[in-house]
């Protein structure tokens, strides 16, 4: 049974108990009032009977006085008593329902008999006749009979009054007993309610609350007891289901953390593999490369400077559209394919073509730009191929600049071919290969741009590639408030002054 119905039942029982008690007390009170009224009427009846007795005594005294002295003065109490007696008997008759009708009739009958005798004797006396002693004797006996009847009436009224007083007292006692019984019942009811509240609410809530607190403290394996009435048990069931969900979520969180820990190792390994690899160059040559990722640890760019043999150096820069681990994996794959092709002596343009073929179809919106460059370190001659990549910057010793523009489109969207371009890196000259994350860095509506790049390189010491890379990346980061919008990669190679020979 629900807690609501239980309390409804208890409240109904309690109200019923109070209602019964109130009904009993009301009935007893009405009865008491009725008896008090009866008692009051009997008191009045007794008083009237006494007054009636006095009235007849006065009449009898007046009669006897007149008969002896023939003085009309004695008839005054006789006549007044008659009027009083009539009024009092009328009053007694009006107080009907008291059970004295027969006795009252007996009194009035006796009174009538005495009255006839008294009237005859008074009439005879008025006529001057001597009153017959026999008549006087009859009158006396009739008055005694009348008094006797009045005394009987008084005794009866007194007896009934006594009974009525006793009944009233009994009713009063019954009312008091009922009040006490009701009070005791109310106390007992309250005690029962308190016990039921404890059993139905306090105890289950205490036990459920204890279990919930233990769950809160971390004991997710401890079930919340589903006890008590349906409402409280339902609440406990919800809490227990929440505990189970929390437990599952904690398990999922543990698994996710383990997965992240495992993936972190993969990401760090990937990042390590994408880190610009700069091989050994002859003394005097300066080379440096660096990448700043736009998102997380892994960029979609990669760069590589590798010594192919004692005469040649290969430079690879790849930029995948997008960034993050997925782009990084594609960048790594592309770099390995290009490196392998170049290591086999393939011309840069053909290396791009073979790489594009081996990469196959990329995603709908995925493409990459790449710049492959092979530098002869003896004479500075350059063979390069540029697949939709921002033009590499060749800074001349005289301050001029040459841009090594694309020799074909980006790799990915559609089948294409790439030609191989030629240039020369003279003594005291440098070449800068970079990704669009450098020149497309924005501040408001302004682009970092290739001109700013060329000016910064022109202002730098052309023999310190690391300083140039560092400065360019610092300038780009300073130019762009907050995080970089795209991965930024720079490779710089500086050829020392007066070393080697010029290409024939």
């Amino acid at each position, binding site marked *: 049974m629900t807690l609501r119905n239980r309390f409804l039942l208890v409240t109904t029982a309690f109200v019923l108990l109070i209602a019964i008690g109130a009904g009993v007390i009301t009935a007893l009170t009405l009865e008491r009032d009725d008896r008090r009224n009866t008692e009051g009427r009997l008191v009045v009846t007794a008083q009237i009977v006494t007054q009636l007795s006095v009235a007849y005594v006065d009449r009898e005294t007046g009669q006897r006085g007149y008969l002896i002295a023939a003085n009309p003065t004695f008839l005054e109490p006789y006549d007044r008593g008659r009027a009083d007696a009539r009024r009092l008997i009328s009053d007694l008759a009006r107080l009907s329902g008291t059970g004295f009708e027969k006795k009252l009739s007996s009194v009035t009958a006796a009174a009538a008999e005495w009255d006839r005798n008294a009237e005859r004797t008074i009439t005879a006396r008025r006529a001057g006749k001597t009153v017959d002693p026999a008549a006087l004797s009859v009158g006396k006996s009739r008055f005694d009979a009348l008094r006797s009847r009045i005394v009987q009436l008084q005794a009866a009224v007194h007896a009934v009054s006594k009974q009525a007083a006793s009944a009233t007292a009994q009713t009063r006692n019954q009312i008091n007993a009922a009040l006490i019984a009701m009070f005791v019942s109310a106390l007992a009811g309250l005690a029962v309610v308190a016990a039921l509240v404890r059993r139905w609410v306090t105890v289950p809530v205490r036990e459920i609350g204890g279990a919930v607190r233990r769950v809160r403290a971390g004991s997710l394996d401890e079930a919340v007891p589903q006890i008590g009435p349906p409402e409280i048990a339902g609440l406990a069931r919800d809490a227990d289901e929440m505990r189970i969900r929390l437990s599952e979520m904690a398990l999922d969180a543990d698994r996710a953390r383990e997965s992240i820990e495992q993936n972190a190792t993969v990401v760090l390994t990937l990042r390590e593999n994408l880190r610009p690899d700069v091989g050994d160059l002859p003394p005097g040559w300066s080379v440096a490369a660096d990448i700043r990722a736009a998102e997380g640890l892994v960029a979609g760019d990669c760069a590589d400077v590798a010594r192919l043999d004692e005469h040649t150096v290969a430079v690879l820069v790849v*930029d995948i*559209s997008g960034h993050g681990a997925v782009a990084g994996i594609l960048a790594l794959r592309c770099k390995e394919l290009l490196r392998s092709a170049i290591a086999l002596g393939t011309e840069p343009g053909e290396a791009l073509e073979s790489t594009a073929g081996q990469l196959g179809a990329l995603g709908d919106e995925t493409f990459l730009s790449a710049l492959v460059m092979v530098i002869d370190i003896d004479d500075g001659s350059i063979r390069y191929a540029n697949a939709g*990549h921002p033009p590499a910057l060749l800074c001349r010793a005289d301050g001029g600049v040459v841009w090594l523009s694309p020799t074909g489109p980006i790799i990915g969207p559609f089948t294409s071919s790439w030609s191989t371009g030629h240039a020369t890196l003279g003594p005291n000259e440098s070449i800068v290969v970079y990704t669009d994350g450098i020149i497309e860095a924005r501040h408001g509506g302004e*682009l970092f741009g290739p001109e700013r790049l060329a000016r910064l390189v022109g202002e730098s010491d052309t023999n310190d590639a690391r300083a140039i890379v560092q400065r360019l990346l610092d300038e780009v980061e300073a130019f762009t408030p907050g995080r970089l919008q795209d991965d930024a990669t720079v490779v710089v190679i500086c050829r020392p002054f007066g070393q080697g020979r010029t290409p024939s």
Partner: protein
Amino acid sequence: MEQHLNGDAELRPAVFVRSDDPDGLPVLVARGEIDVYTSPDFRRELAALVAGDAKRVVVDLAAVDFIDSSGLGVLVGALKRLRERDGSIVLRGMTPSTKKVFDITGLTNLFSTEP
């Protein structure tokens, strides 16, 4: 039908409006900067245009200040879908800076262009 979409209005404003040109070709007019932040809107609007029956759709870039590789990727993806039914994308009103991006990446020849 016209529909207006806004990217981050404070930092990277971009607006894409779909309509039809006088020849009945569906047109997507782009304004502002198309970059990694606004490309999702660009992709959704262009996909809605490509989802129709038209073989040729026009992308008006006259009011585009900047487009990066994510914007180019959206255009390339849409072009691939259109080419499956021998369709094409017309790039209209490219500014010099936008055209330079298309030239460097070699994408200019893949799209039809109009001044």
